[in-house]
């Protein structure tokens, strides 16, 4: 099964349950927004999806590869943008991309070609020799998004990628990733707590207190209600017992 599939995933930090029986499926080429208030379990879910840690209860499939059984195949098909910046600020743009390419086993002409392509897409080719620290927040984020596409993944995971950015940059990056998903057929899981980053055509997942409250097309879930109102109403009800 392609895309991203999560089946009956649970996780606890000691006695504290962070995720309870979470299941959902994002088909190939679909942009899915994972909406949840702070502390809903989004970061735990991301850590499990990216195999920073694992759990015995539940199953995760990335583009058809079970992350528990064949983690390396699954990781190969995955592009990740973490909430925390992961650029090496002391290195140049070029070296940041080269380092990432090498971690995915790419070097030489092939790596060069893909890095050129990534920079062209961002219109940043002339800034390749610049130290990453000199880029503004928006450019750093865009660079991270371009970087996670270098190994041509099929599934893109973004954990609150617009944190700390101004409204215009936020809108631009959200639009950019929507376009990527549409044009390149990428499966996207976009975690956020901001409703204005979600389009009506996106798949919407609402995560609250470790449970999936809703899963479906945004437009049909919210109905006539504006999305912020719908989201507040959903999370006010609390998790199912």
């Amino acid at each position: 099964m392609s895309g991203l599939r999560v089946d009956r995933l649970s996780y606890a930090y000691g006695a504290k349950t962070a995720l309870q029986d979470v299941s959902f499926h994002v088909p190939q080429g679909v942009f899915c927004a994972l909406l949840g208030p702070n502390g809903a379990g989004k970061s735990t879910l991301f850590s499990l999806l990216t195999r920073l840690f694992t759990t015995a209860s539940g199953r995760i499939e990335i583009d058809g590869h079970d992350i528990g059984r064949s983690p390396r195949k699954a990781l190969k098909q995955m592009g990740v943008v973490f909430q925390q910046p992961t650029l090496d600020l002391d290195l140049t743009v070029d070296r940041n991309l080269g380092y990432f390419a090498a971690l995915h086993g790419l070097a030489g002409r092939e790596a060069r070609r893909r890095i050129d392509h990534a920079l062209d897409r961002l219109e940043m080719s002339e800034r390749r020799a610049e130290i990453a620290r000199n880029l503004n927040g928006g450019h750093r984020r865009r660079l991270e998004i371009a970087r996670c596409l270098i190994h041509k993944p099929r599934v893109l995971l973004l954990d609150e990628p617009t944190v700390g950015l101004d409204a215009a940059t936020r809108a631009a990056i959200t639009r950019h990733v929507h376009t990527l998903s549409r044009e390149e057929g990428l499966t996207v899981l976009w975690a956020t707590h901001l409703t204005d980053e979600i389009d009506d055509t996106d798949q919407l997942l609402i995560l609250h207190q470790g449970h999936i409250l809703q899963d479906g097309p945004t437009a049909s879930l919210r109905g006539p209600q504006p999305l912020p109102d719908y989201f507040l109403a959903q999370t006010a009800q609390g998790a199912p017992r």
Partner: protein
Amino acid sequence: MIPYLIALRAIVTREAYRFVGQRSRFIAALVRPLLWLVVFAAGFRAALGLSITPPYQTYTTYEVYIVPGLCGMVLLFNGMQSSLSLVYDREMGSMRLLLTSPLPRWWLLFCRLLASTAISILQVYTFLGITAIYGIRFAPLGYVTILPALVIAGLMLGALGLALSSLIKQLENFAGVMNFVIFPMFFLSTALYPLWKMAESSEILHDICAANPFTHAVELIRFALYVQFNGPALIWTVLATAVLLALALWGYDPARGMVRRKA
């Protein structure tokens, strides 16, 4: 096999770039042992006379005696500093980048370890170069035979740092570990005084020193510098490396380790 080597080269190169970028770190790494050599050893030369013990053939001055221990000190501090940067890396997120690469995690951590060891060895040779200018010189062949000893000792101390970094939750705790790990390890070893000197003052201290893996790393370096081989020291150092490496891999294991607590 090729993706493994590509990643190794990239990780080592990245460490080298970072190291070159942090010039203050390089200078600090050199000033520390040089201070010991010039100030501490000069002061103690009069107080401590060292009789002939292997690998020394003749009466040895204290300044000459502590050079291998100070090489060990460079490796020890650098191993810890490198894991400090791992804790920092993890907080900054770039450890995540490393751990989500599709290569096996043990290989990625091992590459990181090799990279930090290479940087450490570069520092040791710079230190030895300065001591040579200062007037403490060894047989030319000794500078070659010391290399494998430095590699093993560097791996051991790097593995210790790696293991600690997987167990430490925050940067702040790390300062405590520096005090509770680095200083006892350094002072309770043969870096500054030979074992028999320790035995004169206290049997317990002697036993602790004899069991300290850092003692064996220093002795391995000391013998190698005099183009001699110290079998027991080698075995001890290799064993300690294996145990610490296993601990580090356990610490970074996504299913059982401690990483989960801090994500």
